[in-house]
C-alpha cells in the first residue's frame, strides 16, 4: 500500500543513508524503484549492496520521519519520470537518480536556459561581466543557471535576480551540498532569494556537507540543464572547465568571455576560445548562440543527446559553422573524412577513448610498433582528432 509521496520519501531516505553517493544511489535504484530498493537494502538482500553496509542505518531510519523532515524543510524530492523532474535531464546519461528541489522546479521548462559559470576566485572584471550578462539575459526571459558558489556564480545569480522581471527569467541554481546546508555561508541571502524566485536543485540529501567531490559532479547537472554554457572566467585547468567539458560531451555549445592575456583568471577561458569556443562580448552573442542551439535541438527533436564522441570544441579543420562544429569535425574524422585515416591512425583512434589514455595503454591495445604508434598519435593530435595532456591522450 503506497500513499502519495511514499516513492519520493523512500528515495529521500535512501539518499540520506550515511556514505551514500549519487553513483551508488543510481545503482541501488536501477531496476528496483525506491520502495523495493529500500526494502531490499533494509533486508540486506540488495545485489548492489553486497556488503550490506546500508542495512543497519536503513533499519534505524523511519521513512515517514524522513518525509516529515523534507516537508518541514520545504524540499521536494523529484524522481525521473515523476512530476517536476526537469525534462532535459530525462535520458541524460549522467542524470541524477534523485533530485531535490527547493522552490519551483517547473521554472526550467519551456524557457531558454543559459548556464553562467566561472572561477570562485574571480576578478572584479569577471564578476561585473557575469552580473551584466545574467541581468540582461534574465530580462530577455532566459533562465540563468549557476552553482551558487563564490565569485562568478554568485555574481551571475545576483545579476539574474536584478534583471528578472515578473517571473520572466527566474534564477536556477544547482548546488553540491544538501539543501539545508548553505555553502558558502556568505551566500545565505542569495540562496534564499534564488529559491524564492526560482529553484535550487541538489542531488545530495538534506544534511550533506560540502566536500571536494560534490562540486565537479554538480557541474554536469548545470551543463545538462542548459541550452548554452557561458564560462566567464576560469583559471587554467579550473573547475568550470569541467562544466565546459560536460557540456561539450552533450553537444551543448560552450561560450567563453575573453579576458586579458595577463590575467590568470582568464587563462582557461582564453584557452577555450583558442580551442574554438564561441566568444561572448555581450548578451546578444549569447542569445544568438541560444537561438542556434535551440534550432539545432528542434531539428533533432526526440533524439537523445549524442555522447559517443566527446565533441570538445577545438581547432577545427573546417570552419563551416560556429556552435557544434567541433563535434561535427570529430565525427568527420571518425568517418574518415575530410582527412582519411591511415590504418595505423585508425587503430590508434580506436584504442583511445574519451578518458585519458596513457601511451603505454595505446601500445598494449594496438600492438603497433612504438614508432608507428608515436607517429599516428602525433598526426592525430595535429589533425585535431586527439588531444594530449600530461602523458595521456584522449579524443578531442
Amino acid at each position, binding site marked *: 500500500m503506497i500513499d502519495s509521496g511514499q516513492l519520493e520519501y523512500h528515495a529521500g531516505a535512501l539518499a540520506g543513508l550515511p556514505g551514500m553517493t549519487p553513483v551508488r544511489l543510481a545503482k541501488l535504484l536501477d531496476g528496483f524503484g525506491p520502495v523495493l530498493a529500500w526494502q531490499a537494502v533494509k533486508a540486506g538482500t540488495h545485489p548492489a549492496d553486497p556488503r550490506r553496509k546500508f542495512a543497519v542505518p536503513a533499519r534505524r531510519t523511519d521513512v515517514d520521519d524522513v518525509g516529515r523532515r523534507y516537508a518541514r524543510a520545504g524540499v521536494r524530492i523529484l524522481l525521473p519520470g515523476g512530476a517536476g523532474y526537469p525534462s532535459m535531464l530525462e535520458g541524460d546519461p549522467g542524470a541524477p537518480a534523485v533530485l531535490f528541489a527547493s522552490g519551483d522546479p517547473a521554472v526550467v521548462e519551456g524557457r531558454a536556459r543559459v548556464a553562467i559559470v566561472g572561477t570562485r576566485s574571480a576578478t572584479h572584471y569577471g564578476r561585473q561581466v557575469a552580473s551584466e550578462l545574467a541581468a540582461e539575459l534574465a530580462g530577455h526571459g532566459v533562465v540563468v543557471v549557476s552553482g551558487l558558489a563564490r565569485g562568478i556564480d554568485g555574481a551571475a545569480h545576483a545579476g539574474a535576480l536584478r534583471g528578472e522581471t515578473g517571473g520572466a527569467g527566474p534564477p536556477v541554481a544547482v548546488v553540491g551540498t544538501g539543501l539545508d546546508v548553505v555553502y558558502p555561508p556568505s551566500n545565505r541571502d542569495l540562496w534564499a532569494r534564488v529559491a524564492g524566485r526560482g529553484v535550487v536543485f541538489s542531488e545530495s540529501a538534506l544534511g550533506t556537507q560540502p566536500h571536494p567531490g560534490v562540486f565537479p559532479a554538480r557541474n554536469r547537472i548545470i551543463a545538462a540543464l542548459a541550452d548554452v554554457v557561458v564560462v566567464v572566467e576560469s583559471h587554467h585547468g579550473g573547475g568550470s572547465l*569541467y562544466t565546459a567539458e560536460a557540456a561539450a560531451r552533450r553537444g551543448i555549445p560552450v561560450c567563453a568571455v575573453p579576458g586579458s592575456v595577463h590575467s590568470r583568471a582568464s587563462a582557461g577561458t582564453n584557452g577555450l576560445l583558442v580551442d574554438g569556443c564561441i566568444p561572448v562580448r555581450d548578451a546578444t552573442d549569447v542569445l544568438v548562440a541560444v537561438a542556434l542551439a535551440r534550432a539545432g535541438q528542434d531539428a533533432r527533436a526526440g533524439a537523445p543527446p549524442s555522447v559517443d564522441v566527446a565533441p570538445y570544441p577545438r581547432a577545427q579543420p573546417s570552419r563551416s559553422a560556429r556552435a557544434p562544429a567541433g563535434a561535427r569535425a570529430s565525427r568527420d574524422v571518425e568517418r574518415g573524412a575530410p582527412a582519411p585515416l591511415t590504418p595505423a591512425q585508425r587503430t590508434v583512434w580506436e584504442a583511445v577513448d574519451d578518458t*585519458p589514455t596513457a601511451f*603505454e595503454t595505446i601500445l598494449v591495445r594496438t600492438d603497433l610498433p*612504438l614508432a608507428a604508434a*608515436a*607517429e599516428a598519435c*602525433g598526426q592525430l593530435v595535429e589533425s585535431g582528432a586527439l588531444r*594530449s*595532456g*600530461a602523458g595521456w591522450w584522449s579524443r578531442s
Partner: protein
Amino acid sequence: MIAAIPSAVLVGVDATVVSVEVHVSNGLPGFTVVGLPDAAVRESRDRVRAALLSSGLQWPLRRVTVNLAPSGMRKGGAGLDLPIAVGVLVASGVLPPRSVEGMAFVGELGLDGSLRGVPGAVVLAEVLRRYRLVVPEESAHEASLAGECDIRVAATLAALVDRLSGRRPWGEVGTTPDGSFRAASKPPGRPHAADLADIRGQRLARRALEVVAAGGHHLLLVGPPGSGKTMLARRLPGLLPGLDRPTALEATRIHSVAGLPLPPGGLIEEPPFRAPHHGASPVAMIGGGTTWMRPGEISLAHGGILFLDELGEFPAVVLDALRQPLEDGQVRVSRARGSTSFPARFILVGAMNPCPCGEGGAPGACRCSRAAQERYARRLSAPFLDRFDIAIRVDRPLAQELFGPPSAEGSATVAARVAGARERAAERGVRVNADMAGPRLADDAPLSSGAAAIVERQIRSGTLSARGMHRVHRLSRTIADLDGAGEVIGETQVREALLLRGQRRLLPGGGLR
C-alpha cells in the same frame, strides 16, 4: 742527521709529491711535525713511535723534527706514516741512506707495526712513478693500475726494514707491468644482476632507456609510486657499453680517492650507478670537504648513471648545483684553501611523482588541488628541467602485461643495438649525440622535408621552443642511428623524438615545456 723521503698526498683526484724531511739532533727528546699537517698527520707521531717500538726497533731518545715540504700546502691523510717512520730510521742511523735511494713510500702504520692501505693509491702511484714505490699489501692492487711503475710491497714495518737493509730479498709480488695483472683477474663476460628482460610491458620506457643509452641523453621518469621507475633506471648501466680506457682510469681514480672498494679486476670498466638519497648534502653530491677534497656523488657517477629518485625532494640548492657539471662534464670545487676540479660526466636519470598524489592531473583520478600541483612543480626550476632530453610518463603495468607471456628483449640484445648506434655517432666525431653542438646539427643530422615540416608546425603552434627543437633534433638523430635509418632523418624518427621529449605539462602544475 737528516733524511728526505719522497711520498705523496691527495689533492682532489690528483696527488702532489711531498718530501718528508726528518731531522734527528741532540737536545731535549721530542717529536714535532711541521709543514701544515692536518689532524691525521699530527697524530701520526704517536702511531710511528708505537709502530717502531712494536717492531723491535729503537726510538731515538733525541730531538726529532719532521718537515713536510712544500711546507705551504696543507697535507692530510694517514699515508705519510710510513715515510715518516722510514725517515726517522734513516736519520737515526738504523738504515743506511743508500738503502732508500730512489725509493718512495706511502702507507699508514698500525700500532703493532703493520702496514695499512691508503685511499687513492692509484693516483699516488702515478705521481711517484719515477721512484721505486713501497706500498702496503692492501694498496698494491690499486697502485699497480697506474701503469709503468716499480711497486714493492711490505706487510709490516719489520719486514720492510729487513728488505731495505738487504737481510731479505724483495718478493716477486710487487713489480707489475701495465695490464697483465688486470687481464688475469678480470671476470669473464658482463654479468648484470639487473636485466631488461625482467621488465614486463613498459614498452615506452624500455625504448626510452635504449635511446638514453645510445645518445647519452638525460632522462626524466614521471609516474606514480610503484610504477617501476627505480627498477627501470637500474637496467640502464647494463645497456651502456663498457668504459673506454681513459674514462675507466678516471673513474678508478675517483673511486680510489674516495676510498671506495674497487672491483676484483682493479679497474672500473662497468659504468657506475650511483643513487644518492635525497637527503644528501650539497658537499656529498658535488664534492668538497676541508683539507682533503673528496669527490661527490656526481663524480662517483662519472662515466655512468646518476639516479636521483624522488627528484622533487632534493633541495633546490643541490639540483641547481648540478647544472654546471651537466654542461661541462666536470665540477670545480672551490674552497678558501684552494680549488680543484673533479670529472663528472654522467647520464642523469631523475624520477618523480607528477604531483603529490601521483596521478598527474588525470581528470577523475588526481586528487591534488591546482595549488598543490603548482607548488610541487615549482620545486624544480625550469632551466634544470630543460636538461632532460627525454621526459616520459611511467604508469603501473597493466594486468595483461604482468600476466601475459614475456616477450621482451634482454639487455644483451638492446646493448648490441646501442653499441651500433654509438659507433655511428663516433663516425661523425662526437662521443654521444647529446654532446652534438647546435651548429653541427644541420650537417650531421639533416631532416627530410617532411620531418622539418613537422618540427616547424610544432614551433609555430607554440608547443616547442627553439631550445627544445635542438633537443628534439639530437634525439631524432639518436633514434635514426638506432634504427639504422641512414643519414637523413625521416618523419617517423621526429615523431618518436617528439613523443620521448615529453608532452606539454607532464607535471600538471607546469614547469615542463
